[in-house]
C-alpha cells in the first residue's frame, strides 16, 4: 500500500508539495514531518488529496478570473440585456462526472489507509508489545501488560516495531495524538475500548497531545513518546521491572523526603510495580523530560507543582498545600533522585527557536 503511494511523491507536483509542506513545523512534533508508519501513510494520503484539490481550485479560479475580467459592465452598457442562457447539458454533465472520478481516485486510497491503520492481525503474535493507555484528567498512564510495568507521561517504545495500544479513559473523553508518528484516537470511558498502533522509524522523543476537550487543563495534558532501539528498550524493561520502591536514597534530605512521600503521597501514587490507580506511577521520575508534562525538570518547579498544583494545571486532582514548602523541597530531592533507567537520556529533545 505505502509502496505505490510513496512512488507518487517522486512525481514533480508531489515533490514540490512535499518540499513546501515539510517546511512547516518542528521535527518530532509536526504531522508534516512524518517519522512513523502511520504518519507517513497519512502524509501521503494528504498529498494525494491536496494535489486533487489544487487541480480543481486552479480550474475554478481560471474560469473565475476570466469571467470577472471579461464580463464587467462598462460605462454606457447599462441598457444592454445579455442573452438569458438556461443552461448547457454537455457542460453540466462534465462538471458532474469529472468530480466523481476525482473523488473515486481519492476514495480508494482513503479506504485502504483506513483499513490499514485499523489492522490488528499481529497483536496476538508472540513478542508483540501491547500497552494499555489510560487517559486521566490531566495525565496519561501506560501499563505494559504482562510486564508488570506501569508508568506515566512517557511512553517507551522500540523503533521499527508495531506497538499496539489498548486505549480507554478513567473519567472524560480524551484523545491520544502523536502527530509525528501516527494519527490520533479517542480514549473513551466505559466499555468502548479502542486500539491503534505506533511504529516509529527513528529513535527520538516525540511530542504527544490530548486532542479532545477534557477540562480546564486540556491544553496542558502533554506526554512524550520515547522511541529507542529494541536493545535499549529491553534494557529499559529490565530497569523498570527492578525498581525497588524501598531503596534508600543518598542524601539526608532525600531520605526525609522519602519518609514524607510514603506518608502523604502513597495513597494515590506509586513508585515502580503495577499501576497506582488514582495518581501517576512515579517510577524513573528523575529522568523525565518534564514535570507534570509541562514544567522544566528543576527542584524549584517541582516544589511549586507539589505545593500549588492547581496553579500549574487548573482543575487537576492533586490536593493543594498537602505539605509545606520545606517538606515539598525534601520530597522533590527524593523524587529527582529516582533515576531508575537512563535509557533514552541521550536523545535530543526537539525544541527549536522560532
Amino acid at each position, binding site marked *: 500500500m505505502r509502496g505505490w503511494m510513496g512512488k507518487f511523491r517522486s512525481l514533480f507536483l508531489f515533490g514540490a508539495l512535499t518540499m513546501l509542506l515539510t517546511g512547516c513545523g518542528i521535527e518530532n512534533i509536526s504531522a508534516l514531518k512524518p517519522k512513523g508508519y502511520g504518519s507517513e501513510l497519512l502524509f501521503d494520503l494528504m498529498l494525494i488529496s491536496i494535489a486533487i484539490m489544487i487541480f480543481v481550485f486552479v480550474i475554478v479560479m481560471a474560469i473565475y478570473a476570466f469571467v470577472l475580467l471579461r464580463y464587467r459592465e462598462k460605462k454606457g452598457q447599462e441598457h444592454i440585456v445579455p442573452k438569458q442562457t438556461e443552461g448547457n447539458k454537455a457542460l453540466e454533465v462534465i462538471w458532474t462526472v469529472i468530480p466523481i472520478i476525482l*473523488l473515486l481516485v481519492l476514495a480508494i486510497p482513503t479506504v485502504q489507509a483506513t483499513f490499514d491503520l485499523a489492522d490488528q492481525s499481529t497483536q496476538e503474535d508472540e513478542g508483540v508489545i501491547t500497552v494499555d493507555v489510560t487517559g486521566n484528567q490531566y495525565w496519561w498512564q501506560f501499563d505494559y501488560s504482562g510486564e508488570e510495568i506501569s508508568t506515566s507521561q512517557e511512553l517507551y517504545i522500540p523503533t521499527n516495531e508495531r506497538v499496539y495500544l489498548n486505549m480507554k479513559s478513567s473519567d472524560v473523553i480524551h484523545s491520544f495524538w502523536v502527530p509525528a508518528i501516527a494519527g490520533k*484516537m479517542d480514549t473513551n470511558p466505559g466499555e468502548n475500548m479502542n486500539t491503534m498502533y505506533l511504529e516509529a522509524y527513528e529513535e527520538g522523543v516525540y511530542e504527544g497531545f490530548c486532542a479532545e476537550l477534557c477540562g480546564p487543563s486540556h491544553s496542558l495534558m502533554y506526554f512524550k513518546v520515547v522511541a529507542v532501539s529494541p536493545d535499549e528498550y529491553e534494557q529499559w524493561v529490565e530497569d523498570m521491572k527492578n525498581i525497588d520502591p524501598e531503596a534508600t536514597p543518598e542524601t539526608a534530605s532525600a531520605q526525609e523526603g522519602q519518609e514524607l512521600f510514603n506518608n502523604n503521597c502513597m495513597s494515590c501514587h506509586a513508585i515502580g510495580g503495577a499501576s497506582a490507580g488514582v495518581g501517576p506511577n512515579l517510577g524513573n521520575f528523575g529522568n523525565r523530560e518534564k514535570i507534570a508534562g509541562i514544567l522544566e525538570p528543576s527542584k524549584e518547579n517541582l516544589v511549586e507543582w507539589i505545593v500549588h498544583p492547581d496553579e500549574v494545571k487548573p482543575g487537576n486532582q492533586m490536593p493543594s498545600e498537602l505539605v509545606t514548602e520545606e517538606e515539598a523541597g525534601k520530597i522533590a530531592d527524593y523524587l529527582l533522585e529516582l533515576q531508575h533507567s537512563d535509557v533514552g537520556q541521550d536523545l535530543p529533545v526537539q525544541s527549536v527557536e522560532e
Partner: protein
Amino acid sequence: MSTAVAQKRGLGAVIWDYLTTVDHKKIAHLYLVAGGLFFLIGGLEAMIIRIQLMKPDNNFISAGLYNEMITMHGTTMIFLAAMPLIFALMNAVVPLQIGARDVAFPFLNSLGFWLFLFGGLMLNVSWFTGGAPDAGWTNYAPLSTISPGHGVDYYVMGLQISGAGTLIGGINFLVTIVNMRAPGMTYMRMPLFTWSTFVTSTLILFAFPALTVGLFLMMFDRMFGSAFFDVGLGGNAIIWEHLFWIFGHPEVYILILPLFGAFSDIFSTFSKKRLFGYSAMVFATVLIGFLGFMVWAHHMFTVGMGPIANSIFAVATMAIAVPTGIKIFNWLFTMWGGQIKMTSAMLWSVAFIPSFTIGGMTGVMLAAAAADYQYHDTYFVVGHFHYVIVGGVVFGLFASLHYWWPKMFGKVLNEKLGKLAFWPFFIGFHLTFFIQHFLGLMGMPRRYWVFQEGQGLATGNIISTAGAFLMALGTIIFLINVIYTSVKEKKVSGDPWGGRTLEWSIPSPPPHYNFVQTPLVRGLDPLWVEKMDGKEGMTPAEPLGDIHMPNASILPFTISLGLFIAGFGFIYQVDDPTWLIAVFAGMAITLGSMLTRSLKDDLGHHIHKEELEEDIKKGVGKS
C-alpha cells in the same frame, strides 16, 4: 390584542407594536436586531480568544474562563447569531418572493422569535450567575455531565427553548411555501432563495428533534439523577456524540443552504442573466440536504467506530462535494456572458466563491477518514469550518443584507462604506483562518488555552490574531454604515437593483399586506418576464378586494416568558426545592397563555377595498 395600526406613535407604542406583532416583516426586524446583537457578543468572545492565543504561554484569561469563551463563542455564533440572521432574511423575503401576504402561521412566527430570544438570553445570563457553559459547543458527555456549577444547565435549557423556536419557524416556512404561493408560482418557478428556504426548513424539521432528544437526556442526567451518559451506571457517553451530530451536521447545511439561495439570486440579478442551470441548482440543493443526513459520523472518525463505518461515512461525505461543485460552476456560468455590476452585495458574493471553494476542498480532505486521524480536533478543523461558515454564511449574510436592505428599510446601504467594510473583513478573514490549517498540522490541537514556547506555533498565531482585528474593523465599518444610511441616505424606489423576482415589484418597505392584489406569475423570474414584455409591474391575479390579515397578539411573548422563568426553576431546583415555585409559576404563565389562545376566538381583521384605493392613490401599488 388590539390591531394597533396608528400612524404617528410614541416610543411606548412602537415597543408594544413590536412585542405583539405577527407581521413577517417586523419579525424580520426583530430577528435582525437580536441576531445582530448576539453576533457582536460572539465576535467579542472571538476577539478575547484570539488575544489569549496571541503569544505562547499567555495569561490574558484563565483556563476555566477560556473554556467558557470557546463554548459560548461557538454556541452563540451558530444558534444565536447565524440562525436568527438567516430567519431574518427568510421572514423578510420569502413571503414576498412567492407573492404571499404573510406566512402560513403568523402567530407561530412570532412565537418562534420570542422562544429563540428568551433561549438566547437564558444562555447569556449564565455569565452573571456563576459561570457560562464550559464543555465546548458540542457539549460532549461526560465532560458536560460532570461539569461543576450550572453553566451546562444553562446550555441545556437555553438551547431547548430556542431550539423549539427554530423548529416552529421551520415548520412555518415549510407550510408557507407549500400552501401560499401566488397563482402561477409553481415549484420550478420559485426563486432559489425560496427553494433553499424550503429545503432548509425540511432539514430543521428532521434535524432539530435529535437535538431536542439529546438535550432532554442531558437535562435528566444533570437535574433529575438519570444516567443516560454515565458509564458507571450502565449508560453510554458516545450516544450524546451521535445525537448531537445527527442534528449537528444537517445544522451546517441549515446554515449554508439559504445563503446558497441568496447568492444565486444576487449573481443572477447583478449579472442581468437568469440563473444558469436552474433545475440542476434545485436538484443540487435537494441532494445536499438529503446527503446531509447521511454523514454525521464524519465528525467522529477518531471515536473508534471501526474501519467499515469510517469508510462508509468517508465516501458518503465525499459525495457531497459533487452537488456543491455543480453549484460553484453554475454560479460562474451565470456570470459568464453577463453584465456584471460590482455592487457591495455582488462584491461579498464574488468573494464567497474562492473562500467557500477552499472550505469545500479542506472538507473533502477531512472526509478522507484515515487522514482525519491527523486533522481531527486540531486547528485544521477550526480553519476548515470557519472557511465554510464565515466564507459562506457570514459573507452570504453581508451580501444578502446589502441586497435586501432597501426592501426591508427603503434605503440602499451606502456603497462606499459597504466596500470599505468589505476589504478589511475579507483580508482579515484569510489572514485569520488560512494559517490555521497549517497550525493544526504542525501540532496545535483545537480548544487549547495556551500553546508552549518552542513548538513553532507563535508566528502563525500572531498572524491569525492580527487578521481577527481586521475582521473586527470591517464589522465596525459595517455598523457605521447602517447608522450612516439610516440618518443620511435617501429613500429609494421599490426596485433599486433592476430586480427579477416578485419582492422587487412592490414598494420598499412593503405595505403590511405586501401585495394590493396577488400577482400572476408567468415564469421563472416573474418580474423580469413582465419587464421583457414591456410592462411596468406584475399583472394581478385577482380583482381589488378586501384583504384578510391576522391580529397582533402578546401571547407569543408571554408563552416564551413563562418558559424562560420555568427554565430558571428547573436549573436551580437542584440546589433548593423552593425554586420549584418558579417552575410552576412559569409553566402557569405558558399554559395559561396557550389556553387563552385556544379558547378565545381571534378571527383577524380585514383591510377594506376603500382603504386600499386610498393607498393606491398614494402610490402604494407600484414599486
